[in-house]
């Protein structure tokens, strides 16, 4: 921590937690800036939660509202579960970034702006009639106006080898330096990263470092920043931590599952936002026997997965809602072939192409019912970014146990958000038991192989692999006779096979955890959530409980089948409220499957819920307490 200057000359305020939003043009490197601040805060020991927010267009016109790229990081001395409702600090690199982010900013929050970017042209691109820095529209906020472009240019004037454009591209590190100073953070982690990342072009690392240091020392030497803040390390459980996003955790979970099965991992996928990063994470892991396949389309991806599952790999496809729509016929084939595989849906805003970079939970009923015929499948949904690791393992375990495709419903929010993760020790993770029937060379004396002879406990059929002598068999999408799997249009056969497939999914309830509840076993109100809303709902309920309200929280990670005790749990609460980023899909399932009365709190903004919003809902449902 060599960069730390004496804080005595400044007023240092202790804060419990702070949320900062970095916002600029798509080309300004805001994701990178936010990530660097996050890494430093994580290494410092804060608990963190992040949320990137970028446009669907790779290069929307510079300076426009459509081109604003934002990154929010919430860091705290206590346990945080969400990226924060309203940031207290906004770093705005241009007028559009200010305009797009201001509504989110906390009242009286701090705004750090690059005044050089507030040109007539940029103001008009952002739709500002007058310069907000000069009129009274920012009244009530603490505005730190810094001519970042010119100061940065001045600082990097000595870097003759670089073009002006390259020098200007270091501007984000100038801003990062200022924020590091403001929050009394060391520049070490970022410095190390720069020299590692740009090992081939150290001049770039030097220039960015110089920009960062200049920003940092600006805070120290000018009176612009009179206030510094300190957010102390959080009391996380002892251990070694790293930062992880949902897609990273999911990728590591899939690799782990394959290793624990002693299988290659086959990942067949067609690029789609926000699932593509899973493919990017897995592709470099060939040494784990990861066989990634970038298919020609969504249908080819799931079909190749079916082929790979037949061949004996841990087979996984990843996509988003529109991709699931294309895959649904093939998922049904997999269901009737009764082969194990994982179908990952990183949900985004819909319907149709919808909002590719925004988040939603509106594909639950698609996973549940979006296929022809009677076609029940297990569904799991991670609650947090790091929970994606656990649920990937769970999905693999259930798929192999019941010989069925399993849906894993992630969300754009989980996929791209990050939180600290206490990495497990691989040896502590249990093996996933896989059984394949043994072959035999000589047909005589062996009864014929029955590909649909079910295990009496799990009702799973045997996973016989091509290449095994004596077990040759044919599978198909036509209706089948029990045991032999031969084509059969017999009505009784059809009914039996449909029932057995439904029953084997239902029986998984016996091997998934029972539903737990945060708070009293009986109360006025139960908040019942699923998926990525966990952090927000848990925070809101905890806050209401501290205020003495009679409210508890249950969070579902298993959507089909439901935990076996869910019905009993729900009976103990006077009122059940289900907050969802859809118009009430879980609520519909609960009513129909458990016959309970539940109410929906629907949010269709394609943005994560906010704690204050859920707090208000809780209060409104409990009356004045």
């Amino acid at each position: 921590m060599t960069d730390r200057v004496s804080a005595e000359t400044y007023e240092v305020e202790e804060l419990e937690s702070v949320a900062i939003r970095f916002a600029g043009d798509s080309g300004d490197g805001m994701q990178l800036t936010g990530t660097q601040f996050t890494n430093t805060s994580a290494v410092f020991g804060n608990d963190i939660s992040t949320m990137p927010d970028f446009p669907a267009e790779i290069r929307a016109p510079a300076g426009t509202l459509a081109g604003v790229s934002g990154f929010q990081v919430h860091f705290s001395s206590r346990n945080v579960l969400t990226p924060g409702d309203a940031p207290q600090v906004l770093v705005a690199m241009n007028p559009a970034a200010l305009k797009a982010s201001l509504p989110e900013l906390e009242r009286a929050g701090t705004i750090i702006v690059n005044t050089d970017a507030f040109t007539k042209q940029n103001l008009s691109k952002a739709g500002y009639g007058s310069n907000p820095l000069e009129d009274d529209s920012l009244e009530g906020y603490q505005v730190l106006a810094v001519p970042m472009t010119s100061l940065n240019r001045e600082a990097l004037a000595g870097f003759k080898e670089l073009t002006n454009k390259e020098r200007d591209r270091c501007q984000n590190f100038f801003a990062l330096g200022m924020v590091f100073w403001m929050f009394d953070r060391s520049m070490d982690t970022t410095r190390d990263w720069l020299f590692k990342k740009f090992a081939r072009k150290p001049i770039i690392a030097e220039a960015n470092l110089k920009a960062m240091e200049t920003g940092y020392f600006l805070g120290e030497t000018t009176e612009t920043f009179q206030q510094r803040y300190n957010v102390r390390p959080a009391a996380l459980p002892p251990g070694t931590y790293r930062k992880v996003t949902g897609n990273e955790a999911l990728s590591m979970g899939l690799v782990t599952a394959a290793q624990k099965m002693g299988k290659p991992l086959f990942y067949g996928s067609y690029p789609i936002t926000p699932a593509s990063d899973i493919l990017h994470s897995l592709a470099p892991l060939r040494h784990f026997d990861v066989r990634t396949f970038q298919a020609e389309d969504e249908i080819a991806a799931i079909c190749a997965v079916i082929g790979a599952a037949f061949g004996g790999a841990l087979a996984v496809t990843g996509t988003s809602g529109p991709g699931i729509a294309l895959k649904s016929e093939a998922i049904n084939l997999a269901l009737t072939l009764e082969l194990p595989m994982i179908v990952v849906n990183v949900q985004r805003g819909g319907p149709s192409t919808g909002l590719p970079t925004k988040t939603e939970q509106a594909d639950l009923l698609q996973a549940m019912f979006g296929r022809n015929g009677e076609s029940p499948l297990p569904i799991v949904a991670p609650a947090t970014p790091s929970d994606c690791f656990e649920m990937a393992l769970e999905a693999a375990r259930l798929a192999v146990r019941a010989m069925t495709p399993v849906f894993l419903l992630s969300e754009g929010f989980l996929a791209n958000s990050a939180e600290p993760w206490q990495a497990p020790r691989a040896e502590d993770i249990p093996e996933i038991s896989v059984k394949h029937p043994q072959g035999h060379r000589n047909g005589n004396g062996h009864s014929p192989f029955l590909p649909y002879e079910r295990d009496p406990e799990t009702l799973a059929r045997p996973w016989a692999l091509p290449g095994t002598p004596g077990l040759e068999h044919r599978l198909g999408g036509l209706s089948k006779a029990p045991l032999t799997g031969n084509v059969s249009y017999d009505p009784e056969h059809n009914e039996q096979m449909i029932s057995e497939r439904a029953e084997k999914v239902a029986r998984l309830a016996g091997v998934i955890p029972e539903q737990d509840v945060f708070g009293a076993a009986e109360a006025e109100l139960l908040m019942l959530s699923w998926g990525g809303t966990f952090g927000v709902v848990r925070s809101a309920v905890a806050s209401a409980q501290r205020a003495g309200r009679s409210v508890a929280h249950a969070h579902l990670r298993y959507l089909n089948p439901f935990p076996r005790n869910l019905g009993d749990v729900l009976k103990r609460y006077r009122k059940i409220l289900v907050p969802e980023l859809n118009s009430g899909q879980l609520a519909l399932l609960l009513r129909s499957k458990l016959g309970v009365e539940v109410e929906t709190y629907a949010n269709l903004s394609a943005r994560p819920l906010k704690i204050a919003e859920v707090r208000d809902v809780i209060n409104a449902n409990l009356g004045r307490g």
Partner: protein
Amino acid sequence: MSTAATEEITLTRKDFVSDQTVRWCPGCGDYSILAQMQRVLPATGVAKEKTVFISGIGCSSRFPYYMNTYGIHSIHGRAPALATGLAIANPDLTIWVITGDGDGLSIGGNHLLHAIRRNVNLNIVLFNNRIYGLTKGQYSPTSRPGTVTKSSPMGSVEQPLNPIAVAMAAEATFVARSIDSHPQHLAATLERAAEHKGASFLEIYQNCVIFNPNEWTDLSDRKNRDDSILYLEHGKHMIFGKDRDKGIRLNGFTPEVVSLDEVDLDDILVHDATSKPLASILGSMEFPDYPAAMGVIRDVRKPDYAGELIGQVQTAQEQRGAGDLNQLYLAADLWTVEEREEAEEREITSLASDGDEMPITGLDEEYIDEMDKPEEVLSDFQDLLVTNTLAELNPKVPITVGKRSSLARTVRQMNQHNIGCMLVTDEENRLVGIFTEWDVLNRVAGLVDDLTQETITDYMTADPLTLKEDLPIAQALNLMSIHGFRHLPLVDDGGQPTGIVSFRDVVGYLNEALEDMTD
């Protein structure tokens, strides 16, 4: 496939016959194909447990049910995609894809193209009967124009696909054609397809006795077929006919049928299965204009997809060792929280250097790439415009007049200095306006009687757009092009003019720069 060839057990046709009753229409060409397949497979030496048949939907796609091997009767058009996944999961298997003209070229056209393009080690057999059979007789993507069916009662108005040409367009390494009615030829061609490592594409002309019974009559009738079929053999002349009296000759780029009585044998084409242009020519020869080319049209060796992919796995494991999960989990910036309440001392480690680090998510990977990439991404010329500043143009020292000057004085000055543009300044030498030849022509000439009585401020353009010397040349070019300016004043931070850039300066500079680059 070589691994399986060591099996001691000798297989016979019966070993490949399943216990299921075959349910194609009596007389269907599929029976012949099934029989030849069951006959050929024992000869290939591949163990039956290592043989897999994968099909889509259609009459032909019932095929796997009748083969006593592993098999999947999948969904419409998708067999090549399933087979690709299986080949990647287990590259030791011999995988046959059975498809038809509707399954493979209509609903599944995309997968067929890509399986062939990737050269996945599959034997793809396409039964072409130019009709939809299972759905009871609609025209297919290979039906000839004018084909009358239930869905085209006035005749089909569609152009058909040529399956061989499709395979060639997908860079097929093995392309062949045969016909159900010629069992020996069919068996031999199946065997060749099986031998080829990589994607083998075999089109079989197959007869649908119910919905399109006369499609191949000319080619299947024993009396006539030798005059209608050109049997291809690598290295042999392309000669055909009952009396082997006809041959194929190239006339320019066009093949033509010639009589051997009139043409020298040296002029007859010799088949070369490694020649891509020749394969395309043979594929384009449509019966009845030409004899139908049968046999192996193209056969070349290229790396197969799964082999390459598994090769990468092996290379990665040789170079980095088999993956270690704990290393994967810890390949990031790490921090340790100690057992104490206030953990001030933190050990910061990073193991990310071994390359296991997950890529940064989101758009900024692109941002980093851009910082990291070599500089030739902009063309030299663009780079010049963006990086070089207006100072490089050596802007002329501006000639100015005070804002109280008369028109007469201003015009006189312009003449004296031989310039087309005059800057107007205030008492503190700050730029307040610009006056150009254009203004003389449009606002003064013929309109003002006494130039000495008029003040320049009434005739100039007030508060003109200005630039600073340290801005890129591109910006000046941009303003000039948008607004049609021929002159742009440069000012310093205090608003005082430091120079003037003319369109001519910019053009001259660019011209010089272009000359430098082309030298």
